[in-house]
């Protein structure tokens, strides 16, 4: 989302309700505990966590903006810069590596013409290598949005890239 400024950053009602529900899971005055989940929702809705988005979340949860920034920059799932609609996160850790994760990464790099960490020109795909996703027995694997794609082969990568190209909606997080 381009040119984000604080005025036009606003969750729709159903997301405000969801924030309300999540906050209510914690005792009164401990609403900061909802922050990590609310940031997932904000990232899914706004595309990435820009400074205005983080400021908005701070106001929603009645905390200081710095408290949001320090969390948003600590956890690896948050993007503070724009990314593609579909983030292909390929596990690169030990068990996946010995089952051929590196080959899968090079294959995707070649196929999409981007390197690890880059986004395709059409803005659809971002490729990112990540650390262990807890799918070691089903290696190699990648995560797109909430979905795990396991036992990857080049053929499977072809199919899923084609699917996401036609319907690039994998990058949602935190909403149904």
């Amino acid at each position: 989302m381009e040119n984000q400024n604080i005025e036009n950053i606003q969750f729709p009602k159903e997301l405000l309700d969801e924030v309300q529900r999540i906050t209510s899971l914690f005792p009164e005055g401990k609403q900061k505990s909802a922050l990590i989940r609310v940031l997932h929702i904000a990232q899914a809705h706004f595309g990435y966590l820009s400074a205005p988005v983080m400021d908005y979340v701070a106001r929603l949860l009645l905390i200081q903006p710095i408290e949001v920034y320090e969390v948003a920059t600590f956890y690896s799932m948050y993007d503070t810069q724009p990314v593609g609609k579909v983030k292909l996160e390929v596990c690169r850790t030990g068990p996946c590596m010995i089952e051929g994760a590196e080959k899968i990464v090079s294959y995707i790099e070649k196929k999409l013409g981007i390197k690890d960490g880059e986004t395709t020109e059409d803005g659809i795909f971002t490729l990112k290598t990540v650390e262990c996703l807890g799918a070691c027995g089903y290696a190699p694997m990648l995560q797109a949005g909430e979905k795990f794609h396991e036992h990857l082969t080049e053929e499977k990568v072809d199919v899923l890239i084609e699917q996401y190209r036609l319907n690039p909606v994998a990058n949602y997080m935190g909403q149904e």
Partner: protein
Amino acid sequence: MSRKLLLNNVHVEGIHTYDVYRKTGGYAAVEKALKSMTPEEVVEEVKKSGLRGRGGAGFPTGMKWSFIAKPEGVPRHFLCNADESEPGTFKDRYLMEKIPHLLIEGMILSSFALGCEQSYIYIRGEYMYVLRILEKAIAEAYQNGWLGKNIKGSGFNLDLSVSPGAGAYICGEETALIESLEGKRGNPRMKPPFPAIQGLWQRPTVVNNVETICAVVPIVNEGGEAYAGVGIGRSTGTKLISAGGNINKPGVYEIEMGISVEEFIYGDQYCGGIKNGKKLKACVPGGSSVPILPHYLVCKTAEGTDRLMSYESLAEGGFATGSMLGSGGFIVYDEDQCIVRNTWNFSRFYHHESCGQCSPCREGTGWMEKVLHRLEYGHGKIEDIDLLWDIQRKIEGNTICPLGDAAAWPVAAAIRHFREEFEWHVKEPNACTTRNYGLVTEKVFEKVNA
């Protein structure tokens, strides 16, 4: 056939739903505890069972529970650690995805035993789809009166919810988990004070692993003594093992503790042997943090006795010739795998995951990654091997949390057992850059066999 206590009904159609779970005997343990047991009696059964933490450390659960402070008027909290991030480990995901109600039942029992009325499951952010499965199951449990106020007329109240992380291995450390659940960066806290005294929101808190909490269900159902009768010695009960790497049948297996490692690797009901008829080169039996074992120490101890799948047997010989059961992340390497590359990969992981609070870990993990990268890519010097040894020694034991140790151990063990392979990388730098694993390891493998 090994006994199963957690995964008996995992293949029953619809076991993830409340109705099927209930029909197969689910929530009977909660019924029993609320009707006929006091919280102290539940703690007593868990103590008798000998159950030890399944997240990696293996600390006796009953003892951990007995440390919780009970100051008047201060709420206590029970937390489930579902941050499963140890490379090689994927058992908790399997449990929660397949039988979410088992965890919920365990949470109710544990919260009852500890007198906690507000409990949370902290799950890693990447498992968001599992979080949704759990939330659905929790809603079913509320609808059927197993959660909420005055559960089944017992007077016991419990609210349970799930909260995600957002991609940080360190949040599997219990004080970092607590920080994260408070909506902060996952920086581990100094201990003491221990969470049992000052945990979540400075209140007394107990944190247990998913599998540990699930094990409380059969313990209450069948009694602590019956549970202690399964397994071997101080390794009581069953353990879920996540098997991966170069094996024929990767997956999650529930084993009775005490079966032999050989049976686990080569047995048809478990890993089914090494893939493609290759030879076993090495094994990491308990997640990436534990020392790697060369093939001749995997199935046998240095004493020549059979190595068993238990806390004690896997640790036999200390770090010189043994390893740890850890989280049960069992990674098998065949003869084509490069130990230097694997060690570099793990060091990169720990460097990436270090929270940065303590200098030895923040700086040391980065140095280890760089030096190992240099060795792997053919620019290493022979002194680099000693340098690595020196760095890992200076990290171990010098950090607030065990991530430092976890980063040091795999490097130490790789050098201890595979020094020749590191030296080979220095002597034949060109061969290394082509990443010809077969050639690299074959030579070393023959030497090891000789």
